[in-house]
């Protein structure tokens, strides 16, 4: 299993803060994104945004990194703190 988190405008648009997903073999974040986009038209639309950032285990990462079982993956819009 992996844990997937959404934040900010993305969380609000998806009406989803987190979900669990089974993961049998390690896959790239880009692969995971493709799977998520297939969940619904809402997910497909919201996750089409090229500006989205992702973090693997609370560390910013590119979509090429490998996700393994037990990992925490997060997707969110460009940050606006400060």
């Amino acid at each position, binding site marked *: 299993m992996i844990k997937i988190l959404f*934040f*900010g405008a993305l969380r609000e648009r998806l009406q989803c803060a987190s979900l669990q997903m089974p993961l049998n073999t390690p896959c790239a974040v880009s692969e995971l994104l493709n799977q998520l986009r297939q969940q619904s038209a809402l997910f497909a639309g919201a996750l089409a945004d090229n500006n989205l950032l992702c*973090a693997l285990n609370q560390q910013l990462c590119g979509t090429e990194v490998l996700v393994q079982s037990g990992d925490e993956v997060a997707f969110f819009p*460009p*940050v*606006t*703190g*400060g």
Partner: protein
Amino acid sequence: MMPDLEMTTAQQPEQKQQLQPKFDIRVQHADFSLQDVYQQLAATPYCGAVVTFVGLVRDHPELQLQALELEHYPGMTEKALLQIATEAAQRFDLKAVTVIHRIGVLAPQQQIVLVGVASAHRGSAFAGAEFIMDYLKTKAPLWKKQHDANGTAWVEAKASDQAQQQKWQ
């Protein structure tokens, strides 16, 4: 840092520990006191310069801002801020760094964020504090929602913040 010529072997571990930069990183709903942070920073040994930045909820004359709402990624925010502070301390030889970021609902004029650094010299203190703010603005997982006379909207990230951060690379 110059070697301490009077340092004895017995004192070495303690002395070495003093030379490590001190970090104080907080993400909190509560307000903060610049004075408390400053007093901590100013007490850092052999420091000649303390620079602080405080970001406030800014209103516009023609935009009746009611509130800003700050959402964050619990756990990651603290890690990201510590990473940024650590990189700044190495790069600019900072002796102490404090970063406090508030979350939740904040009214106009309220304090949002504080960055404070202590260093031997003013140039590195200014650069270190600005570096931390520029990275915080583009790397720390925090998002602002704006409540004003026109309704509610997520604040859009600014290209200028991205450009500002890339100047340090």
